[in-house]
């Protein structure tokens, strides 16, 4: 934990040689278990997270905001490059302002009907980008629905808050993450540098033609767009984006991952119901049809006759969108029920374990315990869980529709499969489970590849990008 700056309530005084940044994500860094009593919000309404208890009052959001954005900001602050950081996100149950070690979080709140409408549009965009149809608005009428008006309402609230903060703190840079926040860059309307990070897949063939003009307008309001894989670079250009595009692989901080002892691994995993002789296929993903858990179950069913000790361990539950603290969409629970039914119909119920959300320690134990990690996503912006597996020297089987597929060299550090090719997926799983030495070799090579996706590499790339945008090294 870095020390809090002296003027933490205001996000730190702006020294001339240090940058002040405004970050925007849909998912908040921390989610509050319930509405906090007002007595806990003191002074000028800034609540210090350090005065609350993790797990009781709040929890860190799983996924990119905690794994990537927070470590990046901490590194930039520790290096003395950045001083003031204000972070705006949707946080319906959160206090207005929260101080996390000098990083000031600001909450945008929406009432329940607006949240629902916003969620509908979000799901429609995400679904189309991932190549699946969703309920609710269709591609044709999406921009002409009341739901879209509420989607715009949320983005406008966010932009207005960011503009107000800019008046007070005179930011050097706006860094906007998540496809849901795309209109924010246009709505802020500032000439200051605006960077946008698009995390989900972006393939022109997936985007309805009716969306081209509006999306292109929004994309072109940014000075630089960061994507997670090389294949998305050309897609953005084809889409009419005229600005600069960079590929920066998503990254993790290896220090966040530990290797529990063999004894601890055994205790933790046996406690979850994993037997000593089970051959574990680990799938870490939120409960979402896009993540392809159904494909993994079907592949498992095909290998069980020959490898009866194979066991699929599915870790994860809903995303922020599915949580009660978030948008309250119940799709993760529905999907979980569908998967349970599928396991029953295939007769593999006792060979599939759904763990739900688990602690980092338990996850580390599972990575240590598993024989391989599997990413069967229908489409995936990148796939950081593969990198997590690599940090534990575990081989990976990844669908060719994931961004991280471009780092997989078949037979060297993992295998690529088509998400529709269940037979092929089963075959590759068998290959690794049958040959322990092969799995170990692929895992070691994976560890080497993972260096492309570490916080050190990420900070280097992001720092370079920010330096160029704000006017060179002299500003730092």
């Amino acid at each position, binding site marked *: 934990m870095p020390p809090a700056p002296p003027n933490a309530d205001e996000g730190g005084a702006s020294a001339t040689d240090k940058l002040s940044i405004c970050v925007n994500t849909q998912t908040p860094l921390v989610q509050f278990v319930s509405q906090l009593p007002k007595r806990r919000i003191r002074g000028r309404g800034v609540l210090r997270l350090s005065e609350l208890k993790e797990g009781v009052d709040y929890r860190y959001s799983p996924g990119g905001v905690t794994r990537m954005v927070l470590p990046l900001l901490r590194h930039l602050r520790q290096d003395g490059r950045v001083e003031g950081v204000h972070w705006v996100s949707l946080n319906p149950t959160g206090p207005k302002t929260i101080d996390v070690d000098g990083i000031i979080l600001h909450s945008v709140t929406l009432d329940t009907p607006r949240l629902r409408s916003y969620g509908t549009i979000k799901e429609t965009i995400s679904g189309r980008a991932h190549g699946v149809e969703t309920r609710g608005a269709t591609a*044709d009428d999406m*921009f*002409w*629905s*009341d739901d*879209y*008006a*509420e989607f*715009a*309402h*949320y983005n*406008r*609230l966010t932009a*207005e808050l960011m*503009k107000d903060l800019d008046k007070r703190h005179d930011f050097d840079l706006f860094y906007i993450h998540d496809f849901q926040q795309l209109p924010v860059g*246009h*709505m802020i*309307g500032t000439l200051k540098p605006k960077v946008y990070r698009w995390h989900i897949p972006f393939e022109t063939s997936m985007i309805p033609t*009716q969306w*081209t*003009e*509006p999306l292109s*307008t929004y994309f072109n309001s940014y000075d630089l767009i960061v994507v997670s894989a090389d294949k998305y670079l050309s897609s953005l250009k084809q889409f009419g984006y005229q600005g600069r595009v960079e590929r920066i692989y998503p990254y993790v901080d290896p220090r966040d991952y530990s290797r529990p002892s063999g004894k601890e691994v055994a205790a933790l995993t046996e406690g979850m119901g994993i037997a000593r002789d089970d051959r574990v296929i680990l799938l870490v993903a939120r409960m979402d049809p896009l993540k392809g858990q159904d494909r993994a179950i079907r592949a498992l069913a095909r290998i069980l006759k020959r490898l009866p000790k194979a066991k699929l361990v599915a870790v994860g539950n809903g995303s922020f969108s599915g949580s009660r603290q978030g948008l309250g969409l119940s799709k993760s629970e529905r999907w979980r029920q569908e998967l349970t039914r599928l396991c029953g119909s295939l007769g593999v119920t006792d060979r599939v374990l759904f763990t739900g959300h688990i602690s980092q320690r338990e996850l580390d134990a599972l990575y240590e315990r598993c024989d391989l990690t599997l990413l069967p996503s229908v489409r995936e912006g990148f796939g950081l869980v593969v990198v997590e597996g690599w940090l534990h020297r575990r081989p990976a089987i990844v669908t060719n529709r994931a961004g991280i597929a471009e780092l997989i060299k078949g037979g060297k550090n993992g295998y690529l499969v088509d998400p529709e090719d269940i037979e092929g997926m089963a075959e590759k799983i068998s290959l690794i489970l049958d040959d322990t030495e092969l799995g170990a070799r692929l895992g070691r090579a994976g560890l080497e590849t993972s260096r492309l996706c570490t916080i050190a590499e990420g900070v280097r790339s992001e720092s370079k990008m920010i330096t160029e945008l704000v006017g060179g090294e002299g500003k730092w």
Partner: protein
Amino acid sequence: MVNVVALLTPELYFVAIILATWIVARVMTSITARVMSTSTPAVTVQARRAVKLLVWSVGTILGLGVLGFNTEILTVIVTLLGAGVIVTLRKPLENMGSKYFTDVYVPFRLGDSVSVGGHTGKVIEMNSISVVILDAENHLVSVPNTVFMEREVVNVTPRAWKELVIPVTVGNEVDLATFESEVMKSLDKLWLHLDKRFPPVLTTKSKGSQSTELTILVYIQSPEERDMMMAEVNKRITETINSMRKTK
């Protein structure tokens, strides 16, 4: 009961007037600075000086009047000076007035390609006095706003006929996010007559202490409906603002 007014001597009146003039001058220069916050700083400084001079001129004449001085000559001088300033600034003032009308009634916006007064190019700046066009030879052409009122303007941008750009001023008592979503919902009802590829886009131009200047851009389906759609869209925007004010 003591009549306070009767106690006031001309000298005290004079002091009161000078004090009031000082306050009014400060308030007026401050308002001028806010109104012109997006103008060139040099122009803003000159405008503030002019406003300050005007207020002090009036205040001084009133003050000297209560002291018994003959201020007729002074009044004539100030009036003549004022008239002189207006005559001198006639062209800039005409251009400023034309800016309002061109914003509302002449169909082009930043980024459009237009032909006017023998010049063709891309509109890259629209200020109080002129519209700056970048022509094919990369020359900057400054066309006074009055020209857009007096001469034919041809917007040669593809699809320009589709664009309806409606300038809107929304008081800060109206929540901008709610205003935007309500306008979008209201315009959704016209969607058969709007180009479905382009949802309405609200762009904020400037935000002052009292109000926000913005534009709402919609694309129409058919050129014949342009006039009717302009009226309908304007009506819906006005209705939205009014209903939000009432709700407040």
